[in-house]
């Protein structure tokens, strides 16, 4: 009935909704930021986590793929080897705040929002799946292709839809050549007031570079003369942008298709 009791209830209620998972993104981040300096909230969250933990049993176990543990080890090895463990973990964990050992270890605070397309989990996931799709599609395209110069490594990128993982476009490139060919393999719906913009980014680049607007359903050759040579794992994506392209020179709209360059043997 009195004020302190009410304040306690508010904190506890917020902590409960946070642990339950119902808070939207901005409210989640606000809680995670507040936990770094609000011991009462931290304690309330810890109590809720302990209370609701048995509910995790309602999800059936799923056997991880055989590659998951080696992948974890690979990440740890890479971080250790390069001595940049902290930065890498942070980059991978996407926006996690600096380790704050004074904060409750049970719930890490998260940093300011970084909703960039290029560091989103969805993005990395798509790229991984795109790579697998590339292997599958390569099998069918290879047979149809005339033999190419054996010394020049060739790259293929299968661009897949982030949600459905359905392949929509294939990028073909000859390493050393200053152009890529973008070929549609499925229909792409684009609203009349929007346009598809093509982007690429290699590891180590500060951000994606626009390769121009693309007409849905039409193959096109895109010069890369102002860019460094194509690299393995180089990322490509098509985003939905205003009719005249992104006004700020980097992707602003939703990803329609995404994938990364795979070197053909």
């Amino acid at each position, binding site marked *: 009935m009195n004020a302190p009791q009410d304040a306690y209830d508010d904190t506890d209620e917020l902590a409960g909704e946070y642990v339950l998972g119902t808070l939207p993104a901005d409210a989640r981040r606000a809680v*995670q930021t507040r936990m770094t300096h609000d011991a009462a909230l931290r304690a309330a969250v810890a109590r809720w986590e302990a*209370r609701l933990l*048995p509910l995790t049993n309602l999800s059936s176990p799923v*056997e991880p793929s055989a590659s998951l543990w080696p992948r974890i080890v690979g*990440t740890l090895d890479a971080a250790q080897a390069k001595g940049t463990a902290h930065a890498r973990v942070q980059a991978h964990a996407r926006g996690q705040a600096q380790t704050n050992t004074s904060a409750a*270890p049970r719930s890490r605070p998260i940093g300011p929002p970084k909703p960039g397309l290029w560091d989103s989990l969805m993005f990395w996931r798509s790229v991984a799946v795109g790579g697998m799709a590339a292997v599958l599609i390569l099998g069918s395209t290879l047979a149809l292709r005339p033999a190419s110069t054996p010394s020049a490594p060739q790259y293929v990128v299968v661009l897949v839809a982030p949600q459905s993982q359905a392949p929509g476009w294939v990028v073909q490139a000859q390493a050393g050549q200053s152009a890529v060919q973008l070929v549609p393999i499925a229909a792409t719906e684009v609203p009349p007031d929007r346009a598809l913009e093509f982007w690429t980014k290699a590891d180590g680049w500060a951000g994606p570079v626009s390769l121009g607007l693309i007409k849905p359903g039409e193959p096109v050759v895109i010069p890369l003369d102002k860019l460094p040579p194509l690299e393995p794992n180089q990322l490509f994506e098509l985003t939905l942008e205003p009719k005249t392209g992104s006004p700020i020179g980097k992707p602003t709209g939703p990803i329609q298709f995404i994938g990364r360059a795979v070197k053909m043997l």
Partner: protein
Amino acid sequence: MPNRLDPDFDYEAALQECAAGRRAALEALYRQEGPRLLGVAQRLLRDRAWAEDIVHDAFVKIWKQAGAFDASRGSGRGWVYSITRNLALNALRDTARETDVDDDAAAALDARHAIEAWHDTRDAFDWRASAGRMAPCLEELEPVRRNCVLHAYVEGLTHSEIAQRLGAPLGTVKAWIKRSLQALRECLA
């Protein structure tokens, strides 16, 4: 069954070993909880590859932050699940698509459907066998409110998504969840 928990697994000791840099301890933890953590993440994200990304990130984070685990604040097992759930929920919320219905739209949902849902006494989850010490407290909640809590915690649905799922007004769902949390807190005290 490879997924069976070792009831004697010492989570706190494993985390101490991780903090000391012993990879074998992380691997033991992965063998012990990996499938369950992946199950939790996959149920939240509804996507196998995405869920594996989250479990990958979770184990990297567990390794890096094991030294910050404080056993006086809670169980090691709970800490591991909280890390994984938080990564998954952050990812889910941060990539939320603009499909949430707003208050008006939720309130305007078909009335007949809403009434059916409100009176729905069926359980959407098979919770009795698996909720352990929470089961008696879940039992005290009306089924529709219990379903709200479980849709949120287990499936990662937002208030709006639950409102859509149940065909109930958004405000009602928010009130149900708020009161259900109060009831659970008292029951589990």
